[in-house]
């Protein structure tokens, strides 16, 4: 027990580790904020860089970057409507309207505090339930991932604004974009139109940068005359009563975040989408409608994606299996440093587990400190004249896309998506459903085909499997309930229920 305690506090008491964690968090915030620079990439670079370091130092820096990076994506989402990372897409839905009202400072302040709350809940769940949560995560069969993806598609109704037909079109378009490239099973090219560059598919960050960043730049050009909103930067730290008010919501969305994060096939991007939808369904009377600057719409995704960090460490530390792309790279780092990540890691080197838990908590504290400083300066970005901002946004989008895979072709695609996004936006289409499709399309396709192959391509057995396995039955029921809830049937059921 005392050992556990000393491992937990290791990062807190050693000045070197403290410094590295802090450095990681700061670097992470900037990496996360720049679209195209990803935490995965930064951690990969660090592997060669920290090769000769002691393992604890390397891990501390990586944990810092991971925590800072997941949070950092919200910065540009709020300020410029360009999510720095896919997990911050939903943050832009309400964060950007807030910035347009002159409340960028407040929005960043609130998202910082909520990220830290989400992050800490993630750490607590990791510390308390890791082995059990990992066993639960393993129970998810391909058909269950299929159901999760299908459930995610239902979010289209909360993301598509006024016209559902346009929303459904956008999801299908996004999913089609997500499927471009070589087929996973047969290695056939799909929808590549003979291009070799497209064999590897269109990276969803390319789509995201185009649809949000470039389309936004063009959209802004359209309203060139509009003067940027003066930002109110007096109240940055959210008052306690505000934090308390959102606490129940943030607890629920954090749990969503940890569980979705712990599933090896899903990560923070999907977690934040589910959390946003959850907020929209459960918060009946937000002060401001969702999509127009509701604080709830900021709280939900920000808690969920930071809680997903703790979740992603669950299968990694207990089983040696990655929870997402970042933990996959961290597993690589452990291997290179001579450790054997696997189920024996917790038994043979328990200190790694407790050290990581303590270090994650520490990183979240640093996040609170660094996240809340410098907001005033950041908020001023919104006030930069458009004449300067718009060309800069384009350059940022180009650099960001290029650094993803060092491919100029992807930069051209990015610009193409930007122009497409501009027209879609002009004619009443929303960007959210497209990104939803891009993220969920491949998961849906893969898991469907895995599930079908598992039952020998029999569609009867496939449908049967969705209801006879307890876990699948739960997920199926949720989908059915949500579908019913969206139809007039709900009113009828409700009245029957009331009468009896």
């Amino acid at each position, binding site marked *: 027990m005392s050992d556990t305690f000393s491992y937990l506090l290791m990062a807190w008491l050693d000045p070197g580790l403290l410094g590295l964690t802090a450095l990681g968090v700061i670097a992470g915030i900037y990496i996360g904020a720049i679209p195209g620079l990803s935490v995965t990439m930064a951690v*990969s670079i660090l592997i060669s*860089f920290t090769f000769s370091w*002691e393992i604890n130092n390397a891990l501390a820096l990586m944990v810092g970057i991971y925590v800072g990076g997941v949070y950092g994506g919200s910065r540009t989402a709020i300020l410029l409507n360009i999510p720095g990372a896919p997990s911050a897409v939903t943050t832009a839905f309400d964060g950007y309207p807030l910035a347009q009202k002159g409340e960028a400072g407040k929005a960043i302040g609130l998202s910082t505090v909520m990220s830290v709350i989400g992050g800490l809940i993630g750490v607590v769940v990791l510390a308390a339930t890791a082995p059990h949560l990992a066993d639960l995560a393993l129970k998810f069969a391909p058909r269950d991932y299929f159901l999760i993806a299908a459930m995610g598609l239902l979010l289209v109704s909360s993301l598509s604004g006024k016209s559902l037909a346009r929303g459904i079109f956008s999801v299908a378009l996004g999913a089609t974009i997500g499927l471009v490239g070589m087929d*996973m099973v047969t290695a056939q090219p799909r929808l590549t139109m003979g291009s070799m560059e497209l*064999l590897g598919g269109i990276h969803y960050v390319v789509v995201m940068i185009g649809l949000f960043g470039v389309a936004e730049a063009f959209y802004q050009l359209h309203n060139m005359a509009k003067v940027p909103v003066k930002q109110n930067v007096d109240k940055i730290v959210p008052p306690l009563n505000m934090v308390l008010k959102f606490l129940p919501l943030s607890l629920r969305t954090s749990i969503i975040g940890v569980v979705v994060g712990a599933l090896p*096939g899903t990560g923070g991007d999907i977690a934040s989408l589910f959390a946003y939808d959850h907020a929209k369904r459960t918060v009946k009377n937000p002060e401001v409608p969702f999509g127009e600057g509701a604080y709830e719409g900021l709280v939900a995704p920000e808690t969920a994606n930071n809680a997903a960090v703790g979740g992603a460490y669950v299968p990694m530390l207990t089983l040696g299996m990655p929870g997402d*792309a970042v933990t996959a790279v961290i597993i*690589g780092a452990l*291997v290179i440093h001579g450790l054997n990540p*696997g189920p024996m890691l917790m038994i043979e080197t328990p200190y790694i587990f407790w050290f990581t838990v303590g270090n994650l908590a520490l990183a979240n504290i640093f996040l609170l400190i660094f996240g809340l400083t410098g907001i005033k300066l950041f908020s001023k970005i919104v006030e930069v004249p458009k004449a300067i901002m718009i060309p800069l946004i384009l350059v940022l989008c180009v650099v960001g896309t290029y650094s993803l895979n060092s491919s100029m072709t992807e930069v051209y695609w990015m610009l193409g998506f930007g122009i497409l996004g501009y027209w879609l936006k002009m004619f009443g289409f929303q960007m959210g459903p497209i990104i939803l499709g891009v993220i969920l399309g491949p998961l849906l396709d893969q898991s469907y085909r895995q599930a079908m192959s598992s039952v020998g391509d029999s569609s009867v057995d496939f449908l049967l499997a969705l209801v006879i396995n307890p876990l699948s039955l739960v997920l199926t029921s949720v989908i059915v309930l949500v579908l019913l809830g969206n139809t007039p049937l709900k009113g009828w059921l409700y009245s029957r229920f009331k009468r009896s």
Partner: protein
Amino acid sequence: MTKPLFTQLAIAIGSLAVAGSALADYPERNIQGTIQWGAGGATDNVVRSLTPHVEEVLDTTIVLTNRPGGTGVIGMNHVMRQRPDGYNLLFGAENPQLYPLMGLADFTYDDMYPINIIGQGRVVIATHPNSPFDTFAELLEYAHENPDELKMGGTGAGGLPSTIHAMINSVDDLNVRTVTFGGDGPGVTALLGEHIDFMPLSLSAVAEQIRAGRLKGLAVLGSEELEDLPDVPPITDALPGLDSFLPWGPFWGVFVHEDTPDDVKATLEDAYEQAVASDGFQEFLTNFGGESLNLNGEEAQQYLDNWQSVTAWSMFEADAVEKSPEELGIPRP
């Protein structure tokens, strides 16, 4: 702990400065390294742990970029289109040797120059501990009696499991359902959750799971037991006919453009030979479950040709591919 760290940093920065100024010959600037596979995968791990040793020998920085996708076609295509000056390296796995056969691309490693064949992975056929089978022979027997019932994890056409499946089918008949995953990792996760019955995997992906008793090995792809996996029988116990294909394994290598100047090729070959042989890397490779090869020049070419002919023909004989290797000029083993 603080002090050594800052010393390390200082040394790192210092060495960077030296690398930037003093040298006139190759390499006089940073080298770009392209990894054919994504971050966190086996190729990525091998390359990232080898690179610091090479940087030490060459006294320069190798900037590594992952360019995954298209079973490695994208990364390889990129490097082949760069200037042949030795400043663009390709780090790849075995897959390009089968591109023309699979119809993925019309080039192979024959169109590049092998600097070093670093090593090869070993292959285990694994199952979950609740499985009724203890050896591959038992599984094979069950599969003969109940065709198309067992679920095998795969990683798609051209992936390791599909190649092993083809090898088995060229000497026997293993009729199973193939469930395709995005890579070794998701496959192992599905195996741990008992959603599939077995999967051929690289040892590095499963060694720890087997050691912890979360998975069990049915067979190793080889004609002898492995030291690190006692009690897992060699696959030749169940299928003696496979002996002619062995030894076989997925491999990792470093390649440059064919037209790179000879002195640059020689410098690189020398650097990689030293780096692969270094104690630090050898220790990693053993720990990782790989087998060191450290081949270059004629030997490397021979290894590549042999691998290609063995694999291509076994796939053809198992009807896993339509094109005949003969059409593509791949000699019979």
